Every structure is written in structure tokens, then in C-alpha cells.
């Protein structure tokens, strides 16, 4: 157990010591800020009464896919190093000959990835603070929103870890992660098409937009959480298997 934390700590340390981390975080905050400003203008400009339920925070987290498109790039960028860099540098050998299991290594990397994910969302608390100064914040709804974000992160980051285990270089890890998240996103987008009910049911689970719409309006839907956690678990399980196979190959 302590090895998981040791691995995560090293990963987090070297990430936040690199200028790269701040480039990523700054551009992400810039994008979020622009979106938030856009929604604030929209709410402020709406005629009184027409947008009775409008809350810029809810719109930010749940009403737009625009918010999630950049994540298709940011997630790969955050997770690409995790295992691919160990493979490329050869440090996988020192890592796996230390008294740690492959599962411990994968969980350590995943824990670090979840910290990166949290770092992405920490700045949004600033918007919460701003909104609370000039209006009312529905704290229950906000709590549900963050549970939803955590759920999305759980499987986004797990897929990132898996792709980083499969790839032998950071670039290919990033590309693979982008492709897999992009495919899930594309499947989700299909909810806007006219399809039969059964297909629609499945698509609604996959759709990150649908997912966040539910959480941001305060509904903690356990079906989404089951989906998130199963996908996260599957990703991590496969990542461990890939590491085991990688050792046989070397």
C-alpha cells in the first residue's frame, strides 16, 4: 500500500516541478475562464424571467459539450508520461525489481493521474466563489456536479493510464488516449441522432454530455457512477495485464 503512495508522490512531484505542468494548467484555466465568462454574459443578457433556472455554473458544467472537447486533449497530455516514459527510459526495470507488484505500480500511477485531474478542476472553485458573491450557489447541486466530474475523471484517467501502459513512447500514448476518448465522445454525440430506444439507452451512458447534464442539475444517478467505475476498473485491470505482458516481451 505504501508503495502505491510512494510511486504517486514521485509522479506528482516531478509533474508539478516541470514547466510543462503550468503550460497545461494555464491553458486549461484560460479555456475554462473564457467559457465561464461567456455563460455569465449570456445569463446577464437574458431578459428577466426567460432564464429563470439559468445558473452560469450549471451551464458551465452541464449545458455544453464545448467544455469537454478540450479534455480530449488535456487528458492525454496529463497521462501520456505515466507508464510510457518508464518504458522508454528503461526505469520500468528498476521499478518492477523493487518490492512492488505490477498492480501497485498501476495504482500508484492512477492515483497520481487522479491528483492531476483534481488539479484541473480546482480552479473552478474560483468561479463558485465569484458566483456566490453576486448570486446564489446551490451547494447540493454543486456537490453533485463534482461527484459527476470525479466519475468522468475516474474512467478518463484510467483509459489514459492503460494507453500509457500500451504505448512505448509518450506521443503514441497521447494519440491512443485521444483516439479512445474521442471514440467515446463520438458515441456520446450520437444521442442527437434518431436511433431506436435500446441503442439510445447505451449511448446515454457513454455520453459525457448526458452524464454531466444529470449531475450538474443535482441528480446523482448511480447508473452513471456504475458505468464510470466499471470502465475505470476495466482500464486499470487491463493496464496491469499489459505491464505483465510487457515484462515477458522485453
Amino acid at each position, binding site marked *: 500500500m*505504501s508503495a502505491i503512495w510512494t510511486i504517486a508522490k514521485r509522479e506528482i512531484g516531478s509533474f508539478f516541478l516541470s514547466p510543462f505542468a503550468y503550460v497545461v494548467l494555464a491553458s486549461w484555466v484560460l479555456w475554462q475562464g473564457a467559457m465561464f465568462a461567456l455563460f455569465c454574459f449570456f445569463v446577464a443578457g437574458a431578459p428577466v424571467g426567460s432564464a429563470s433556472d439559468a445558473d452560469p455554473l450549471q451551464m458551465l458544467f452541464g449545458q455544453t459539450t464545448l467544455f469537454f472537447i478540450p479534455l480530449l486533449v488535456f487528458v492525454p497530455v496529463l497521462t501520456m508520461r505515466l507508464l510510457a516514459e518508464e518504458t522508454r527510459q528503461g526505469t520500468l526495470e528498476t521499478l518492477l525489481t523493487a518490492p512492488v*507488484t505490477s498492480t501497485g505500480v498501476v495504482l500508484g500511477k492512477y492515483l497520481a493521474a487522479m491528483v492531476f485531474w483534481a488539479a484541473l478542476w480546482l480552479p473552478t472553485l474560483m468561479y463558485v466563489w465569484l458566483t456566490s458573491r453576486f448570486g446564489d450557489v446551490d451547494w447540493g447541486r454543486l456537490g453533485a456536479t463534482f461527484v459527476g466530474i470525479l466519475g468522468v475523471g475516474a474512467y478518463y484517467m484510467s483509459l489514459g493510464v492503460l494507453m500509457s501502459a500500451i504505448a512505448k513512447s509518450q506521443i503514441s500514448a497521447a494519440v491512443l488516449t485521444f483516439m479512445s476518448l474521442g471514440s467515446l465522445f463520438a458515441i456520446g454525440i450520437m444521442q442527437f441522432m434518431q436511433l431506436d430506444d435500446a441503442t439510445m439507452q447505451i449511448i446515454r451512458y457513454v455520453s459525457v454530455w448526458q452524464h454531466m447534464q444529470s449531475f450538474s442539475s443535482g441528480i446523482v444517478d448511480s447508473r452513471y457512477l456504475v458505468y464510470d467505475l466499471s470502465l475505470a476498473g476495466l482500464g486499470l485491470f487491463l493496464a496491469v495485464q499489459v505491464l505483465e505482458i510487457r515484462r515477458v516481451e522485453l
Partner: protein
Amino acid sequence: MIEVEHLSKSYGARRAVEDLSFSVKKGEVVGFLGPNGAGKSTTLRMLTGFLPPTAGRIRIDGLDMLSEPVEAKKRIGYMPEACPLYGEMRVEEYLRYRAELKGVAGRNIGARVGAALEMASVKEVAGRIIGQLSKGTRQRVGLADALVSDPPLLVLDEPTAGLDPNQIRQVRDVIKGLAGQKTVLLSTHILPEVEASCGRVVIIHRGKLVREGAPDRIRSMGPGASVMLVSRSAEEPLLHALRAIEGVTEVTVRDRVDGALRCEVHTSSEEREELGERVFEALAKAGLSLRELREVKGASLEDVFSALTTTDHAQPAEEPSVPAEEAKS
């Protein structure tokens, strides 16, 4: 400390290690020898739990590497061949991380890191970023990593590769200093290294064990020695005196230059010590002249090694120090 039984590793159809068995006792310093590509690194990677073997059994301090990998790995300090390190970390920070990962108790980490820095003589670079260090220094950081958890067994894969002569001496001194307290298995293809630091050698070639024993024992299995001499004395008494020297198997006349005779004297492997001196003494005793005398080929571990590891001779001969079951490979 290490028991390897019938270890094999295949990559597809290629067999990197084949039915390899050997053991290393507590406190021994053993050299693991073989030409490049003999399967040394593959074997060490299996011993340290990085590669799963295709077949066979590995026990470290009585613990099976396959069924109790975490416990077994705790007893090993391993330095891989390429000595991979995290370039962005500082030396001391890296060693603290490794100590923590290897399960050194929090309160002991400071002391252990200090001791490892000291032993591997990297104390002066403790605060430097690893990526900026020279190859030799990085190599010693790798050695410090192997030492940091104070494991009873050290497995070092070519610990002196890429070092300059001074650094090589330093690393050898560290290894010598460990003799007695730790069990060391070090791989190399640099033979003086083995002669300098190892009590026993295991030679493998093409994934198979070819010889095992003390370095001087192995040396005595090599070809005999030869000297070349030039003398102005008459041929008949000269050859007679040379052939009378104990252990001399053959004397061949090469050519004549300005009335001087140039010939070569060969001995069997058992009698090859100080051949030059013995030739000189014999000629002096017989009152013969000697213009030139030089060793043509000093039988060294190197000769044995090359004799054993060139394809034709790779089959293990009858070798008393290798138990029958191991020699059959």
C-alpha cells in the same frame, strides 16, 4: 543465497537461456561471465524478478521468486545494465524515493541514503540533477540505489561498463569492501574485473553454463603458455636444453637471422607458470646465449574465456568442479 535450477528463457523460437543451474552461497562474490549476448542480462533480470522465466526455479534466500516475488525482491539490490534513472530528479531525492519504495522505515531513510551516498562515493553530487551527471557518475548513483535498502544480496549487471579507470577502481573497491558482509553476483565481460574482485566465476555461453569455479582453477584449464626466444648458440645443444625443461611440450624452430636461431617453446597448461624464467634459467645453466626472450601468449582467464566461448569449444568438457547434473547442460 541464490539457487537457480534448470532456468530457461525463450523469446519465440530463440532460446536466450537454456537449462541453467548454479548457486551462490551467502557472503560469496561471484562473477557472472560471458560474451555479449550470452544471456547474462536475461538471467539477471529473471533472478531479480523482472522477467518471468519460461521454465525453471529461482530461490533467493530460500524464497521462491515466482511465488513470493515481493519478499524475495526485498532482499536484492539490483543495478541493471543500462542503469536507468529518472533524469529530472536530484540524486538524494531519487535515493530517498528508492529507499521508501524498497520499504526502508521512514526514520531510517536519512541514514540509509547517507550511507549509500558515501559507499558509492556520490556524496558530492547529492544535490545535482541526475540528467546532468556524467555516465560514470550515474553508474555510481545506480550502485547507491542498489545499496540503499542495505539488502543482503547485490546483483550488479556490468557495474563498471562505461567508467574510466579511476572510477572502475572505485567501484571495485566498493565491491571488495562488501565482500564478507554481502553476497554479490556481478556480471561482466571484462576479465580483469573478475580476477580482481570475485572468489568464484560462472561462465555462460549461448545461454548455457560452460564452466564454474574459482578464477585460478578456471585459468588452469586454459591452453598452455608459449615463449619466443632468439639465441646465437648452436642449434643442437639449445634444443636439447629447451626440451629438458619440465613441462615443455614442444619446441619449434622458426627461422635464422644473422646466425641467430629464433624458436618457440610451448608448455602444457599445468606447467605454464613462469615459463620465461625457467627458460632463462635452463639456458644459463647450460651456458647458452640468449639475445631475446618474450612471452608470446600468457595463459590468462582471457584465453580460457575465449577458448570456452568461441563456438567450437563451447561444449563443457569433463570438469571436476562442476557437479554432474550441472555439467550436462
